[in-house]
């Protein structure tokens, strides 16, 4: 006799008719339990990350607990508690006093816009009335920060340059082409990009479309600093944001294709921008001290090649700011360019 298959469809139907639905359920449960035994699909990457996270969590919890134990021991004695209470009371009282004094001072000031406010004095009048003829810039703010007070802007660009230098000193870990650490402290080079989804097609296509427009907008804001609102700092920040978007979309292997994003080019570009600013300041001081007329005249107000040296200085400041923003981001993320 042919051996009947116990789990074939006619046999199951027979069981259901004869013994009720409980027999069928038992068969189904047995099948499910047999199938669910092994672990569901989890890639090795996720398992490793889970373990790493558990370890970090345990360590952080231990640290926090130690702090609380120490604090509890300190607060136990009565004298300590009394001193702490008095300190809190005095601190609150001092803060309320300062807030009250400041509010009283502000209420005594004239309302904004009235003619006898301290902001309206002869200095501001001189700048507003003679700003256009002396600097040639339609945007008076750009004329102020890049012509009358250009030395202060040199100090600001210097501060940005110093900031990126210190971040380079502290955070830079030399990496070779594959991402391995060439030199640096032990434990560095942990590229956290490894744990994230990479090669997102949607983001890459969007970045290919959007980043040229963002960079174009940044350049436009920088170049028209003396004609319309904007200037070096805003345009530089927008350009830096565009570069950050490109790095995020294509990863570091995508940006290494361009020679632009390497460490050497970054170094030379920032140095060149700051040096050009300093040189042009030297030239301005020289012609001003000897009562000479500078080569770069003011030109006709409203055209793009006007306002003396404001256009080149805007470009320098814009590049310093853009490279600083991009450098911060990539040094934080990866440790190298």
């Amino acid at each position, binding site marked *: 006799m042919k051996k009947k298959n116990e789990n074939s469809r006619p046999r199951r139907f027979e069981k259901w008719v004869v013994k009720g639905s409980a027999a069928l359920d038992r068969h189904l449960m047995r099948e499910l339990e047999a199938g669910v035994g092994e672990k569901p699909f989890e890639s090795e990457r996720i398992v490793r990350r889970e373990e790493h996270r558990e370890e970090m969590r345990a360590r952080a919890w231990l640290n926090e607990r130690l702090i609380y134990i120490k604090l509890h021991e300190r607060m136990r004695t009565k004298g300590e508690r009394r001193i702490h209470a008095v300190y809190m009371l005095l601190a609150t009282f001092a803060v309320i006093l300062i807030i009250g004094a400041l509010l009283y001072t502000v209420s005594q000031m004239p309302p904004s816009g009235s003619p006898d406010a301290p902001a309206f004095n002869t200095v501001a009048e001189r700048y507003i009335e003679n700003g256009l003829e002396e600097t040639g810039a339609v945007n008076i703010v750009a004329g102020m920060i890049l012509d009358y007070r250009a030395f202060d802007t040199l100090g600001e660009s210097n501060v940005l340059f110093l900031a990126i230098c210190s971040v380079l000193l502290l955070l830079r870990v030399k990496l070779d082409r594959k991402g391995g650490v060439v030199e640096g402290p032990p434990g560095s080079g942990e590229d956290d990009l490894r744990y994230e989804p990479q090669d997102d097609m949607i983001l890459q296509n969007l970045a290919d479309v959007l980043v040229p427009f963002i960079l174009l907008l940044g350049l436009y804001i920088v170049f028209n600093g003396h004609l319309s609102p904007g200037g070096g700092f805003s345009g530089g920040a927008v350009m830096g944001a565009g570069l950050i978007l490109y790095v995020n979309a294509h990863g570091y292997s995508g940006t290494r294709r361009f020679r632009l994003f390497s460490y050497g080019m970054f170094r030379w570009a920032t140095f060149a921008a700051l040096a050009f600013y300093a040189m042009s300041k030297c030239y301005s001081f020289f012609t001003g001290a000897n009562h000479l007329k500078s080569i770069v005249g003011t030109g006709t107000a409203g055209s793009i090649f006007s306002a003396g040296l404001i256009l080149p200085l805007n470009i320098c400041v814009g590049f310093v700011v853009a490279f600083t923003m991009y450098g911060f981001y990539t040094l*934080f993320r990866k440790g190298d360019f």
Partner: protein
Amino acid sequence: MDILSITLLIFILVSALAVSFTKNLLSSIIIFMLQSLAMSVIWMLLESPDLAITEAAVGAGVTSLLFFVALKKIHGMDAAGGAEGVKHEEKE
């Protein structure tokens, strides 16, 4: 003053306080970003577009981005649902 200016100023005050009093670090950074955005609109209402562009690009853009990356570096983004500062609950 306009009702819009008053609303935005109150929004900035409340969000600045909320940044300090929020336990979740990720939420604090997002509220900081909101404060920069509201500040940018206020600069526009005070008729200074230079500052508005700069504040929007720097405050609501690059600075907050650097905060996020720093938060990731100190592993503050563990735990499901975002950062919780440092976890100090009992481990079973």
